[in-house]
């Protein structure tokens, strides 16, 4: 299959800065070539949606952006990824600092087996974002409100995070990531277990975050991509098939694969 390179088609950056510049990124899981030669520029103060069929490499690519792939023994990453012009795979880069700036919500909710409060307060604590307990409380409350979880858990902040329902856990993880105030937030299907109302609230949150940060979101819901994102990237079999303004992608897809994926839209 011949790759459709994106570089030459990169859309005008609208005077917005490029936050992430990725060039010829390749990811291998052992022998398996999971990401093939992907080049893409992600913009600042923008929501970018990654769409594509299951198993096409969205999560893999997302995990490259904050070097979470380092933790998978067999994963190898090649190519260059520049965050604000600095190569994040440079030997001098401290992945910890990188991840503090590039936060992540995982596809499978993974709350710590600690209290709800501690789950959210963990990031602010290690990064010293609060000067005192009151400030920390405030950060926690704000994050939980943002993730539309506050009302459900405000009376049980001391209970363990793993005792929550699936959707609640997912929102807890969102709150946890938001509380750390990253510059870039990577969200891997953040609303997959949420009901419509909670989804709307999270989407609202994403929209708010966009004012200051960039957000990258993986989603299977075309509607959601259309609602929240300004840019959309369509992945297929490890290739980045098409990348552009969300409107364009959904209304005038240039690649036949994009078109057939979008038109097969169901729900």
């Amino acid at each position: 299959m011949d790759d459709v390179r994106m570089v030459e088609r990169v859309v005008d950056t609208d005077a917005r800065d490029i936050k992430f510049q990725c060039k010829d990124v390749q990811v291998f899981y052992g022998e398996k070539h999971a990401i093939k030669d992907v080049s893409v520029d992600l913009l600042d103060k923008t929501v970018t949606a990654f769409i594509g069929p299951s198993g096409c490499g969205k999560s893999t690519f997302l995990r490259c952006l904050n070097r979470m792939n380092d933790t998978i023994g067999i994963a190898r990453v090649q190519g260059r990824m520049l965050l604000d012009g600095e190569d994040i795979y440079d030997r001098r880069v401290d992945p910890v600092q990188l991840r503090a700036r590039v936060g992540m919500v995982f596809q499978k909710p993974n709350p710590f087996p600690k209290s709800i409060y501690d789950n959210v307060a963990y990031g602010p604590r290690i990064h010293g974002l609060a000067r005192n307990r009151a400030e920390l409380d405030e950060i926690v409350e704000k994050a939980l409100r943002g993730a539309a979880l506050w009302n459900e858990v405000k009376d049980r902040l001391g209970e363990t995070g793993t005792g929550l329902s699936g959707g609640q856990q997912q929102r807890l993880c969102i709150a946890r990531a938001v509380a750390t105030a990253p510059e870039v937030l990577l969200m891997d299907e953040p609303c997959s277990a949420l009901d419509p109302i909670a989804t709307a609230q999270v989407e609202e949150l994403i929209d708010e975050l966009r004012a200051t940060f960039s957000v990258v979101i993986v989603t299977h819901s075309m509607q959601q991509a259309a609602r929240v994102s300004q840019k959309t990237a369509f992945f297929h079999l490890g290739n980045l098939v098409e990348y552009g303004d969300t409107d364009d992608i959904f209304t005038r897809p240039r690649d036949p694969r994009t078109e057939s994926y979008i038109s097969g839209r169901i729900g």
Partner: protein
Amino acid sequence: MSPFWITIAILALAALGYLLGRSRSVRLAGGDTRALHSRPTYHGWHVALFTALPALVLLALARLLQAPGWLAPAALALGVAGLAVALSRTAPQFRARNVVEQVVRGILIVCSLIAIATTVAIVLSLVFESLRFFRMYPWQDFFFGTEWTPSFGGGSELGMLPLLWGTLYISLIALLVAVPVGLYAAIYMSEYATPRVRSVVKPAIEVLAGIPTIVYGLFALVTVGPLLRDWIAQPLGLGSSGSSVMTAGLVMGMMLIPFVSSLSDDIINAVPQSLRDGSLAMGSTHSETIRQVVLPAALPGIVGAVLLAASRAIGETMIVVLGAGAMARISPNPFEAMTTITVKIVGQLTGDNDFASPETLVAFALGLTLFVMTLGLNVLALYIVRKYREQYE
């Protein structure tokens, strides 16, 4: 000042350094800790580590080399210097966390090197005396001899095969007792028992590991040995020895139960519940779930526990001395007295033999041989674990 008090002084200095480093970083950040690269505690640790580490290392060196007394005050001075340097480096953008973590990493490495150092030291302390032994006694006879009859006047036969046979035989029986019992006990405790039962049974079984082996030895000698002889060995015509491989193996197995049960219990308990749920929801019984899902996932830990038990079995002396007798021979009959390498190491090393004679030095050769053999065993175990490990999530 004695080294002890100097150490205390250095530690006190380090504690002071911690406080100073912390407050200085906060001050430099103008009270807003968010302006710092690293949390104030890391700045504190940074200063504390730089105060304590070089000074303590110097002190240890001085002690080891039995260097003159002025080194101790020098260590104190070094501590003060370290404090000053570290404090002067403190700045809002100073990567204190990275530095501290590098140092901690260094400490971790040093700690894991202790194991290597121990190995090297053991090999060294065995190898020279072993060489001495092999200069006096032909190695072929040692490795392939089937007679073990040391005697004072010289002319001893020092073949290790009977000892090796006894070692393997007794360890095998001990493991045949300890592994099933320990594993089933662990499974029961972590999967079936109520938390209350578990919280009583687990520490209780652990007491078995703490009972001095001499008690087991006497138990073997006085109770189990005659029992086996009168009820099994004699009626079956398998001999009339009160001490036997079977006696020692059974009793040793008893002692090893907690090694298998407690460690396995922890590991089994750590297997995520979602895996059990997944299996139960398919309509598998609890035991099917355990055998096919939980145990494979817990395999590395269980193998580790079994290895530990096996190691202990190989290294045990007292139970063998009292339970198995001191007869070096090769026989398939488990109701006969035999003995193990470890017993003979202890025996030859603490006896009345002339310490420069092959009869004593053979202990070192035995130790070295055992070391190499168990090394092989462990390589094999590592390979097996690598091959069959099922990593969850």
